[in-house]
């Protein structure tokens, strides 16, 4: 604000001056509806955060919605497996804008203790744009509350002029990974996989022999 707006004397204490963006953010930050969606162990701490002791109702988000179309926030609370990730991407695509993703716990963030497993995706951020990462295995409910507060701040600082859901161009959907083949196929990687198939003798797998122990 370059120009100070003067409130008339008689209205002082009854009105306040703010920007549209701020009031927009203020209204949205306290009415987040998380999706009722548990993936693995962290879901229990997610539920514990909703229960009596931690009480996310204080943050205006006690109304967990079972349908993605009514939710603003998806908490990926656990290990994302290859079998599950197409469904998670579908759920994310079904959510209406504005939408936010919290990656809860080590598994959702980077694979966690199960990273080396053959059915585990090394972090949900390979497919979804994650807003907040919560460390821990599982994160305590306090850590999750801290993540909610961080998300509130992020929402507060979004400018109504710049947010992507008010732009003219449509927001592209996240391509849904393909399951049913020898392994999970990320559609964005298909050209590279095609290229690899043309190279004759190259091993398309991990170079297994090469670990100079």
């Amino acid at each position: 604000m370059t120009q100070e707006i003067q409130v008339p004397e008689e209205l002082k204490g009854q009105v306040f001056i703010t920007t549209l963006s701020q009031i927009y953010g203020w209204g949205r930050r306290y009415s987040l509806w998380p999706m009722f969606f548990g993936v693995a162990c962290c879901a229990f701490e997610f539920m514990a955060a909703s229960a009596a002791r931690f009480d996310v109702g204080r943050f205006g988000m006690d109304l967990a919605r079972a349908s993605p179309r009514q939710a603003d926030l998806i908490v990926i609370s656990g290990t994302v497996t290859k079998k599950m990730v197409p469904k998670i991407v579908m759920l994310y695509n079904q959510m209406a804008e504005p939408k936010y993703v919290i990656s809860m716990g080590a598994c959702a963030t980077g694979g966690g203790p199960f990273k080396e497993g053959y059915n585990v995706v090394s972090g949900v951020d390979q497919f979804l744009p994650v807003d907040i990462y919560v460390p821990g295995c599982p994160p305590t409910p306090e850590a999750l509350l801290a993540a909610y507060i961080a998300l509130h701040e992020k929402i507060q600082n979004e400018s109504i002029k710049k947010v992507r859901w008010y732009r003219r161009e449509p927001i592209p959907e996240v391509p849904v990974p393909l399951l049913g083949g020898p392994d999970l196929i990320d559609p964005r990687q298909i050209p590279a996989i095609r290229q690899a198939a043309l190279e004759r003798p190259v091993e398309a797998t991990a170079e297994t022999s090469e670990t100079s122990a």
Partner: protein
Amino acid sequence: MATDLGAIEAQLNQAFPGAVIDRDGDWLVIEASRLPTVAQYLRDEMGYDWLTHLSASDYPDRFEVVYNLYSSRPDQQGPGIPFKVRVPDKANPHVPSLTSIWKSADFQEREVWDMFGIRFDGHPNLKRILLWEGFAGHPLRKDWHEPYYEQEHKPFPSRWPHAQQPKPRSAEERVRWRANVQYPQGFDPDQWKPVPEIDVLPAAKIDLNGLETDQVYVNIGPQHPSTHGVLRMIVGLNGETVTSIYPVLGHLHRNHEKIGERNLWTGIIPYTDRLDYVCPMYNNFGYVVAVERLMGQEVPERAEYLRVIMGELTRVINHLLAIGFQFNELGAMFTPMIYAFTEREHVLDLFEEASGARMMVNYYRFGGVARDVSDDWLKRCRKVVDRLDRKIDEFDTMLSDNEIFIARARGVGAMSWQEMVNYGVTGPVLRSAGLKYDIRKVEPYSIYDTFDFEVPTFETGDIYDRYRQRMAEARESVKILRQALDRIPARGPIQAGKKPWNPKVPAGELYSRVEHPKGELGFYLVSDGGTNPYRYHVRSPSFVNLGALEAMSVGHLFADAIVILGSIDITLGEVDR
């Protein structure tokens, strides 16, 4: 620990000369082609009617499919008959299926097919269960390597950043795709057609009292508030009545067993926490008991008491939470569940102080527990136990006589215990149908034989009885907790000998089971004498109990199927592993 295997071997040899071809430690080796007849004989003539565990292991020259039979007959409950079948043909392994004798073999044979590629002849639906159709390879074979494969055994060089030069590369850098994927050589994404996850189900016509209608299939999950996680069920409906349920598993398949075989023996303990994440303490318990049996390890008295205290606290909160979720599904949204979560917090405070973590406790060690507790902790534990006792009564007052609950739960999902035994169902669900069978009594481990407690049973095995069963068991656990808190030695070692950080386990093979809050938690371990298991298999109660879901639900209403699922009390971390 073992039954009189010699007598059984003699009896089998008399009935089927030459069918028992070998004796491998505590295991009878049975000729594969005669497996079904021998199994039928064991079930019908000898009373070993209970196939609780079936899995396999991969050796350089053969596969072995292992079976553990137990008996529900009061005179021979306790140790069972372990036997195995050798499959020398590694290129094209075949074993006769036992699904016609035991329905509990259904899921477990499918799992073996999925993980090892052993075909079970005669299995009605031999499809992959944890992975998807079309997946390349069978991952638990020793020659199958995951994309992030580094070495056979931990510790991996990349986990020791200062130990070697040049610095090892991270997993993503080593893999061509910078992600945890691998494709067979020459895999062409353009020629590829995905194998559908399940077959398209036929739209059958149903004749409904002269009205011609269609069979409807409803898909529930994997994202659904009542599936207790990421379970998918395809429910066939005739009007509102369930005609079939096909569970699709594996959405939380975290490769527990493959990682376990890479891990050190001690390194598995924290992974077991994450099996059934409602009761991490008891998973620890089951695993360390199994390894201690293999090692012949003794446990000091105070540690045993601590183990029992932690385990029974877990059992109480598991049962309260199960009841809470159950009522969620019945429409009593959140109130009982939040009551249960409040109690859970009090117990978790104790766990956090004792182990350092709320949920993933990693508390048990071979020959003891990780840390001692203070006298003050024990005092507060007693307060929590008193509180739990009151709260169980409160739950009882609040819920037991609720008319809506009774109307919805009585007679729903009932199953006789004989049928449950055939399905391999264990735990509170089985006992609620009337069979008095508790591993803490029939094959005592730890110090459970010194406690005075009852094994409650009910009659019908419907949802209402399962609820009452859980209440009664929680009360018995409180009884055990009181005795344990009274008798725990004031001082004493909590670890036998030195803390082993990387123990070697003597070569051997065993199946060890404990009474987990959800049922029989078994660990099948094969050691080659090294610092990591050769084969590590978890027989989880949720996975096997889930096999009975369809039989329990068919004929009931769609809304009841959800409640029946809740009353079996599954945790997906344990179903899919």
